[in-house]
C-alpha cells in the first residue's frame, strides 16, 4: 500500500470539480437563500437545496447507486468485470447498465457490492421515499389530516372553480408537446404530462406523478412546482386585476352555513366513492388524502391524526426534500429542458389562474352576482397561499370584504381537482 499526499489530493473535491457540479451547488444555495430570506416554501426548498449541494460533491457519490459509484470510479479492472457481467465491451458498459433489466440488473448490483461499493446515503433515501412513491402519499395523508374541508362542504359548487383551474395543466401539456418544435427539446407524452402537473400547484401530487412518469425530470419539476407555489402572490394579482372588473372584485359574499360533524365525516367517503367508481388510477392519491381527513374528522383517533399531522409529515418532508435534491445533478438539471420546464411552469400557473377566474365570472353571472369571481383564482390549489392572495386583492377593492373563507372552498377543491387530473394522466399515459 502506498498512502501519499498524491492519492489523497486526487480524492479532494478541488481536483475533481466539474463546472456543472459547481453550478448545481450554486443552484442549491439559491434555493436555500430563497427559502430562508424570502420564505419561499422553506419546508421543502431548504432540504431540496441542501440535498442538491450534497448530491454534487465530487467524489462523495452521495446520490449514486453502488453501480453508479463503480462506473464513476474509473477503476479499469472493476469496469471490465461489470462489462463482463453485462456481456458488453468495456466502452459500452455505462449505456448497457442503463438499459439492464431483470437478472442482469441484479447481477450488476451483486458485483458492485462484492467489490465494496455502497449506495450513497441520498440514493438510499431516494429509493425508500420517492422511488416507492411512499413519501408523497404520506405527505398527502398529512395534508388530508391538516385540511378542514368545511368551506367546500358548505358550498359544493366551488368544486367547479377547482375543476376549471386544472385547465392550466392540460394547456401546459399541449405547450410542452409544442415545444418539441424548438430544436433541443424532445418531450415524450409522459414527460409532457409530468411537466403539466406543475399547473396543479400541488407539491406532493407533482412529485408523485413525476416519479411515475418522468423520473429524470423529477428534480426540475419539483423545484418549479414549489418555486411557483411560493411565487403565487406575485404571479396571480396582475392576472386577477386584468380579468375582473372593480365591481366584480368588490362583491361581498354571503356567510357560509355551518357544517355538521356528520357531514365532515361523510365527506371523505363521498370523494373516495367517486374515485372508486370512475378513476381508480387516482386511488393512491385521493385514498391517502381522504384517509388523513377521516383520521382528523372522525374524532376518535386523535393519536393517529396527530401523528399524521406532525411526526409523519415532518419526518417524511425531511427525507423527501433531501431525495428531491439528490436528483438535481448537473447532467439532468443543466439542460435546455429545465429552462423549458420553468417557462412552462409559469405558463401553467397563469393559465390555471385565468381559467379559474373565467369560471368565477361565469358563476358570478349565473348566481346573479352573488359570487365574487376572484375566488376562482384560488382554484389552482397552492393551499393556503392562493386563498390569501384572493383575500388581499379583494380587500383592495372593498376594505370590509373578507374573502378568505370563501376562497378556501375552491382552494381545497383545487387539491382534489389536480389529484383527479393526475389520475387521468396516470391512467392514459402511465398505462401504456
Amino acid at each position, binding site marked *: 500500500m502506498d498512502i501519499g499526499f498524491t492519492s489523497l489530493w486526487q480524492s479532494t473535491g478541488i481536483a475533481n470539480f466539474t463546472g456543472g457540479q459547481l453550478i448545481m451547488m450554486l443552484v442549491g444555495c439559491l434555493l436555500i437563500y430563497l427559502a430562508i430570506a424570502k420564505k419561499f416554501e422553506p419546508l421543502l426548498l431548504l432540504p431540496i437545496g441542501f440535498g442538491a449541494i450534497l448530491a454534487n460533491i465530487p467524489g462523495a457519490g452521495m446520490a449514486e447507486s453502488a453501480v453508479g459509484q463503480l462506473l464513476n470510479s474509473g477503476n479499469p479492472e472493476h469496469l471490465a468485470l461489470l462489462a463482463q457481467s453485462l456481456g458488453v465491451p468495456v466502452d459500452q458498459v455505462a449505456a448497457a447498465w442503463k438499459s439492464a433489466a431483470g437478472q442482469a440488473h441484479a447481477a450488476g448490483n451483486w458485483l458492485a457490492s462484492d467489490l465494496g461499493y455502497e449506495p450513497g446515503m441520498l440514493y438510499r433515501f431516494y429509493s425508500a421515499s420517492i422511488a416507492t412513491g411512499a413519501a408523497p402519499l404520506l405527505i398527502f395523508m398529512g395534508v388530508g389530516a391538516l385540511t*378542514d374541508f*368545511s*368551506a*367546500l*362542504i*358548505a358550498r*359544493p*359548487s366551488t*368544486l*367547479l372553480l*377547482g*375543476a*376549471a383551474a*386544472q*385547465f392550466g*395543466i*392540460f*394547456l401546459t*401539456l*399541449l405547450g410542452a*408537446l*409544442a415545444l*418539441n*418544435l424548438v430544436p433541443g427539446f424532445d418531450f415524450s*407524452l409522459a414527460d*409532457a*404530462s409530468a411537466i403539466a402537473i406543475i399547473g396543479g400547484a400541488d407539491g406532493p401530487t407533482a412529485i408523485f406523478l413525476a416519479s411515475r412518469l418522468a423520473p429524470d425530470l423529477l428534480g426540475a419539476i419539483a423545484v418549479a412546482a414549489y418555486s411557483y407555489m411560493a411565487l403565487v402572490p406575485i404571479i396571480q394579482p396582475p392576472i386577477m386585476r386584468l380579468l375582473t372588473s372593480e365591481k366584480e372584485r368588490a362583491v361581498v359574499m354571503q356567510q*357560509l*352555513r*355551518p*357544517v*355538521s*360533524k*356528520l*357531514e365532515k365525516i*361523510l*365527506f371523505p367517503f*363521498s*370523494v373516495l*366513492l*367517486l374515485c372508486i367508481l*370512475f*378513476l381508480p388510477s387516482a386511488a393512491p392519491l385521493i385514498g391517502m388524502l381522504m384517509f388523513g381527513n377521516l383520521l382528523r374528522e372522525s374524532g376518535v383517533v386523535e393519536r393517529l391524526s396527530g401523528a399524521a399531522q406532525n411526526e409523519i409529515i415532518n419526518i417524511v418532508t425531511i427525507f423527501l426534500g433531501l431525495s428531491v435534491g439528490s436528483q438535481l445533478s448537473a447532467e439532468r438539471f443543466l439542460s435546455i429542458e429545465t429552462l423549458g420546464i420553468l417557462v412552462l411552469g409559469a405558463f401553467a400557473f397563469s393559465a390555471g389562474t385565468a381559467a379559474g377566474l373565467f369560471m368565477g365570472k361565469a358563476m358570478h353571472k349565473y348566481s346573479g352576482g352573488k359570487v365574487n369571481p376572484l375566488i376562482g383564482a384560488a382554484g389552482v390549489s397552492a393551499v393556503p397561499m392562493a386563498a390569501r392572495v384572493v383575500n388581499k386583492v379583494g380587500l383592495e377593492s372593498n376594505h370590509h370584504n373578507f374573502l378568505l*373563507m370563501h376562497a*378556501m372552498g375552491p382552494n381545497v*377543491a383545487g387539491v*382534489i*381537482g389536480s389529484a*383527479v*387530473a393526475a389520475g*387521468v*394522466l396516470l391512467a*392514459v*399515459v402511465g398505462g401504456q
Partner: protein
Amino acid sequence: MPFSELMMTGIQLMLIGMGIVFTFLIILVVTMKGMSRLAISLEGELPAVDTAVKAPGRSDEVLVSVISAAIRRYRDTR
C-alpha cells in the same frame, strides 16, 4: 411518434382530461349535496353544538391569553 400525431394525442388528452375532471367534480357536487341532505336528515335538526368553519388553534389562543394574563398578574405582584 411524429409531431403532428403527438399533438393530436395531446389535444385528445386535453379534451378527455378536462372532460373527466369536470364530470368528476360535477358529480361530486351532486353527491355532496345529497350527502349533506342525508346527514342533516340523519341528525334530525342540526344540533346546537355543531361547529361552523372553525379557526384552528383555538385552544392555543386560550392558553396563550391565559398565560400572558398570568404573567402580567405575576409581575404586578412583585
